């Protein structure tokens, strides 16, 4: 009977777990790592980025995001939207072509791969014959022209990827149709570029690597014209169809007149090496766009003088007399120009440049061509991220102050709205305002709006202004000298170089109610800041705190303290520092906690911890946790002994990892067995060469860095007896030691003059000596104590102070619950002893039930070194759920993880991207968006191939015809019923097609 009841209880608990917890990776924030291709659809207003890892990401209006991943782990080399359709084609570096579509499903769109294709040449042909080098998505939306390394152009019908052999343009056909005198001289080489005539879709120009350009008529299957040039890089057909621009590897570009077929003798109308005289680098892409009145825009990529500026990454924009060489900080992948007007055929309005580390959008309609701030795709890593901190549910007042400060900073950005507005964001407004703060290597703290799908930059705080640094802060801002040639202009915010590593931010703590912000850095500096809406000039109060407390015989070999500017400093509006604490020795701050209600800040380093009263600017106490035998802790973060050991270990790991990745890249070849053998051999050889050994030894008090303070926590709880609760400070060290201090605060009216005192109350040495990562006190109900000021602002239930409190200590190995005030172990959960994983991150989160609004419970959210996330219940420390989240090899991803109070989390999947995940069933932030097929073109019959297989090539009168049709379509689509029918037929078509492609993929 009893057992039966327990059973019922367990199944009930299981059900509850399902209502509370659900793991989901929801969205990726930031900038895609290693982008390799760019595409844009003017009709959809969607931007597509392909990456070297085979991901394809689509972006439209803020909040409209899609992501797809190719099964092949190959780089995406080209992305092309099918004109006026929701399909796009990607080319991978394994020569496979993939068709993607945005399919509507339950009111939202999703990105789906609907087909794949690999060119097959005639039997026995060398692979170069079918190796695709150029792709042209024909404006008919039904054809793909594929230029290959062998010089052939294959014509493929899409979306089904049906080869139209009779329409292929072979090299022979080309050679037969142009004069022999040209051919006799040289081989044509590969197809470098394919461009369609903007006014006559039946004409395409085929550009060969050697420089020959042939205008080919797809209908008549003959060459219209040929244009001989030197080594070709790219081509552009001007909008009126009258000229072709070609760019070349010697840094020159040429303008060619397109004449009728009868004009055999064609001369170069204009040839220019823009940065000439000395040898120049290639111009890899050239674009010319007309304006309604005035000269056209000419944009090209590269062409810099090889010797002096060969290392610059430049795009030159020439418009009339204005000539600017936009100088980017990383390699240019690709660029495109957005044109204004309803049909996107008007004046160029914005230049979008994808460089390796960011996307830069230049407003071409505003004087001075300012940069438009991107609402997404922001490089998180403009300086490397060193830490992050998440604050949920920001009060509106603070939120607005941050936004205002941020707007003041962004004055130099263009006022123009974001030009890429495709799709509709259907996601509901975020229920609360969440803030993600990232600390960076250069001493900045960035504030991000993390409430929704778009991680929007809000405000940037620079802490370096409070210090003297070697570099002049205005160094990079200086505009280029007058008359410099080329006329460079620095653009982009990616700047990975830090002048002083000591400025790096290590810990951040923001109190959302008071607005107080504590920021701690690499050189033991702790800055206390508060928001100010006005710029102000003042000096920062500085206190040096000696954490060694007269410990003898220690010599700090690390970096020196930062030099504080003693003169008054002009601080811009926003968070302004008012107090600075500097630890001595100036070791990196490893723990930080702020209690804004008590106006106390606690900080810890590898030497000890201290408590600082920032109202009176007075240090309350310092505790040295240093183990006298610990030599490493003295030497600072740049210890040679450690670094050699570490670098050796890392290099071994790297070797191993590279082998793993090499293995991954090998596709399922016929030589699979051979590969497996080789792998085994390699592994054996590796094993013999470098036997990776692990020492099994119990932790001892003599281990290095046992005194390093890992966590600090303020709590109002029972430390001395069970009737009086007092403020307390808790600290946990790397050596498994927990210190508790009782704090005596003077009465409110004397807070400013009477000193705050503290006395040691408890010390717990965990027997297993594992590093203490988290401390949390539970109230009488077993719920975690609320945050400071939370109760005062009526945002939390006041804690239960009647029943006894407990303290939960999370070490790397165990979760232990101790009673208070008499500390005795009550419960525990062992993690490492059971499954060998160790806790890396721990946070407290509240989980609401998805079924009933009023039920929820708190739990510990845990990330282990195996990359798994666990939820541990409170107060019983029972394992609830666990999910694999991060690859265990991804050490930086695991180290970067930060949890929110609502059971979500962020971690870095690359230096520039946060992955957002959620453990909660109630709080989810994920994209919810719809992209509708463009109305104005796309004939309705596009999905019903004509029975005879003949394809209608749009003729010259197309333009007028299509506009007429689009009007009719509008009328049709306004009729609900018709719309539904069309939708149905479209979807039916697509699903059956999907099935087919799936079958072929299986076969």
């Amino acid at each position, binding site marked *: 009977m009893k057992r039966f009841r327990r059973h019922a209880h367990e199944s009930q608990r299981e059900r509850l777990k399902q209502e509370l917890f659900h793991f989901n990776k929801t969205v990726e924030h930031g900038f895609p790592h290693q982008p390799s291709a760019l595409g844009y659809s003017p009709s959809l207003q969607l931007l597509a980025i392909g990456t070297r890892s085979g991901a394809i990401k689509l972006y439209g209006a803020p909040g409209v995001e899609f992501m797809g991943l190719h099964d092949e782990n190959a780089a995406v080399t080209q992305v092309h939207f099918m004109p006026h359709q929701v399909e796009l084609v990607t080319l991978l570096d394994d020569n496979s072509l993939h068709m993607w579509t945005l399919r509507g499903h339950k009111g939202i769109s999703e990105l789906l791969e609907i087909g794949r294709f690999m060119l097959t040449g005639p039997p026995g042909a060398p692979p170069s014959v079918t190796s695709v080098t150029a792709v042209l998505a024909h404006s008919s939306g039904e054809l793909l022209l594929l230029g290959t390394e062998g010089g052939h152009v294959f014509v493929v019908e899409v979306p089904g990827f049906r080869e139209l052999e009779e329409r292929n343009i072979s090299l022979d056909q080309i050679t037969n149709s142009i004069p022999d005198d040209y051919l006799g001289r040289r081989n044509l080489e590969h197809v470098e570029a394919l461009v369609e005539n903007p006014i006559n879709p039946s004409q395409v120009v085929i550009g060969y690597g050697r420089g020959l350009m042939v205008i080919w008529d797809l209908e008549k299957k003959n060459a219209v014209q040929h244009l001989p040039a030197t080594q070709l890089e790219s081509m552009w057909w001007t909008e009126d169809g009258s000229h072709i621009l070609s760019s070349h590897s010697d840094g020159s570009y040429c303008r060619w007149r397109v004449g009728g077929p009868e004009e055999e003798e064609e001369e170069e109308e204009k040839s220019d090496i823009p940065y000439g005289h000395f040898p120049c680098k290639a111009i890899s892409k050239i674009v010319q766009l007309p304006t309604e009145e005035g000269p056209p825009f000419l944009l090209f990529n590269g062409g810099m003088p090889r010797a002096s500026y060969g290392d610059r990454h430049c795009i030159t924009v020439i418009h009339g007399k204005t000539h600017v060489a936009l100088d980017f900080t990383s390699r240019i992948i690709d660029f495109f120009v957005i044109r204004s007007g309803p049909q996107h055929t008007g004046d160029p309005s914005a230049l979008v440049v994808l460089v390796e580390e960011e996307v830069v959008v230049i407003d071409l309609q505003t004087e001075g061509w300012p940069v438009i701030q991107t609402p997404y795709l922001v490089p998180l890593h403009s300086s490397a991220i060193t830490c992050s901190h998440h604050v949920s549910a920001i009060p509106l007042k603070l939120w607005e102050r941050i936004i205002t400060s941020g707007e003041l900073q962004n004055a130099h950005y263009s006022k123009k709205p974001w030009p890429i507005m495709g799709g509709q964001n259907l996601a509901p407004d975020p229920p609360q305002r969440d803030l993600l703060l990232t600390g960076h290597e250069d001493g900045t703290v960035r504030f991000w709006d993390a409430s929704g799908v778009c991680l929007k930059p809000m405000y940037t705080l620079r802490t370096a202004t409070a210090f003297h640094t070697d570099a002049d802060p205005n160094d990079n801002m200086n505009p280029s000298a007058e008359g410099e040639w080329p006329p460079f202009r620095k653009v982009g915010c990616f700047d990975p170089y830090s002048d002083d590593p000591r400025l790096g931010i290590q810990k951040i703590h923001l109190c959302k109610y008071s607005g107080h912000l504590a920021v701690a850095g690499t050189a033991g500096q702790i800055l206390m800041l508060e928001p100010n809406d006005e710029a102000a000039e003042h000096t920062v109060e500085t206190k040096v705190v000696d954490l060694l407390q007269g410990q003898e015989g220690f010599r700090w070999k690390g970096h020196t303290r930062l030099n504080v500017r003693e003169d008054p400093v002009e601080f811009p509006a926003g968070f302004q520092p008012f107090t600075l604490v500097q630890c001595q020795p100036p070791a990196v701050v490893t723990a930080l906690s702020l209690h804004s209600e008590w106006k106390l800040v606690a900080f810890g380093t590898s030497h000890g911890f201290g408590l600082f009263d920032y109202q009176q600017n007075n240090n309350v106490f310092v505790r040295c946790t240093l183990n006298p035998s610990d030599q490493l802790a003295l030497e600072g973060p740049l210890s040679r002994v450690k670094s050699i050991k570490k670098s050796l270990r890392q290099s071994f790991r790297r070797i191993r990892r590279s082998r793993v990745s090499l293995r991954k890249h090998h596709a399922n070849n016929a030589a699979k067995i051979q590969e497996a053998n080789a792998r*085994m051999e390699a592994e054996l050889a590796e094993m013999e060469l470098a036997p990776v050994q692990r*020492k099994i030894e119990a932790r001892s008090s003599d281990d290095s860095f046992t005194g390093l303070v890992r966590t600090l926590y303020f709590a109002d709880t029972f430390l*001395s007896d069970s009737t009086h609760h007092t403020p307390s400070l808790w600290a946990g060290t790397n050596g498994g030691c927990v210190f508790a201090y009782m704090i005596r605060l003077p009465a409110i009216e004397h807070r400013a003059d009477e000193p705050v005192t503290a006395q*040691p109350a408890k010390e717990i040495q965990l*027997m297993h000596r594992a590093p203490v990562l988290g401390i949390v006190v539970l109230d009488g109900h077993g719920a975690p104590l609320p945050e400071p000021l939370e109760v005062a602002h009526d945002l939390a239930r006041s804690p239960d102070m009647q029943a006894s409190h407990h303290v939960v200590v999370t070490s790397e190995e165990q979760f232990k619950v101790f009673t208070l005030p008499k500390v*005795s172990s009550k419960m525990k959960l062992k993690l490492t002893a059971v499954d060998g994983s160790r806790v890396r991150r721990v946070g407290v989160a509240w989980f609401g039930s998805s079924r009933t609004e009023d039920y929820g419970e708190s739990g510990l959210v845990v990330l282990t*070194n195996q990359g798994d996330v666990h939820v541990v219940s409170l107060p019983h420390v029972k394992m609830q759920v666990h999910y694999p989240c991060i690859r265990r090899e991804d050490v930086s991803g695991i180290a970067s993880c930060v949890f929110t109070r609502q059971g979500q989390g962020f971690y870095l999947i690359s230096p520039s991207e946060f992955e957002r995940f959620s453990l909660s069933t109630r709080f989810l932030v994920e994209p919810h968006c719809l992209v509708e097929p463009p109305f104005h073109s796309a004939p309705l019959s596009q999905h019903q191939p004509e029975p005879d297989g003949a394809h209608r090539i749009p003729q010259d009168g197309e333009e007028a015809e299509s506009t007429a049709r689009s009007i009719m379509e509008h009328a049709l689509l306004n009729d609900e019923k018709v719309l539904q029918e069309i939708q149905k037929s479209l979807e039916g078509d697509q699903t059956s097609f999907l099935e087919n492609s799936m079958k072929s993929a299986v076969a």
Partner: protein
Amino acid sequence: MNKTHRVPSSRSLSAVEVKSKFGAEFRRFSLDRSKPGRFDEFYGLLQHVHHIPNVELLVAYADVHGDLLPINNDDNYHKAISTANPLLRLFLQRKEEADYAAFGTDSLTRKKNTVLSAVLLRPDANKKKPPVIISLPKDFRPVSSIIDVDILPETHRRVRLYKHGQEKPLGFYIRDGSSVRVTPQGLEKVPGIFISRLVPGGLAESTGLLAVNDEVLEVNGIEVAGKSLDQVTDMMIANSHNLIITVKPANQRNNVVRCGGGGGAASGSSGRSSDSGASYYGYSAHGAVASMPTHIIQNFSAGELESDEDEDLVIEAGGEAEAIRHAPSDYSIPSVPRYEPHLNLRSHFSSAYSINANGTLHGSGSSGSPNNINANSASPSPDRAKERRSLEEDGTVITL
């Protein structure tokens, strides 16, 4: 031990020559080997012949191996008489002069005859170098043990290392490797974790139960298959205060051999195992000339495995340090309840002794670990066991 002393023993079968030394004085007398009488009678006789009627004495004799062994009960008295060949050399000491008198009459010292008699005879030397003491089994601190012999396959060995309160490092390294498994599909290579190195002087090495290239199968009852080297490392470190590893020894020759289906008598099976254990010790004794191993074969219930003895140390404000004990079941492994009072255990135990007797005593003495010092005192029960074994030996002597 054969021809040379078989001749005299056959010559004077009935009489035993006794040479008793007290301080600088010698007394010689003889006893009837067939009727030695009881120990208290013998004790009275000694007091009488030395003319020290009211002096409390410690009586010791030199055995055939030259070890100094105590005589303090009937059993070891009989053994002393029976093994005398033909001379029985006795060494008497005042109890109050002996530093170890506090340990009670049951304690005995054993040292190499040649060295120790000299030491014993000079009280000043005695003070400089306190004799090694062996205490009762309950005072032993187990260092390692083989457990779960009856439930594991013969090819596996489950070893428990007791790290608690010890200064000695666990002292071993593990590595990745691959082992060959027999599967229905044939031989298959699977990744495994292996012991790669033993630190000289470490706990792992001194037990002699773990060796390089032993495959680690389980850590505290949890299989390591599918776990990474780092995970297994962390598991071992997390369990380091009470580490139980199940290994497949690389050297399968020294395995515990069980008799098949022997009536379920645990004593029977472990009796056999203790025999082979003894041979194992012989092996390890010359293999690793290190300190004395103290192994106990025992079976643990799951609960006992779970029992954990990490007592966190709590210092209350201004107060004394105090260890947290949570549940009554949470004692720190006291050795007594861990012992199974089987005869075979004791005989096993005694075989451990035999190594000491064979000359590893110095190693243990100089290693200075308090456990080892403790381990060198003894109690009646191992003594009885010792007698058993010697009786068996006698048997062989007789048949020879």
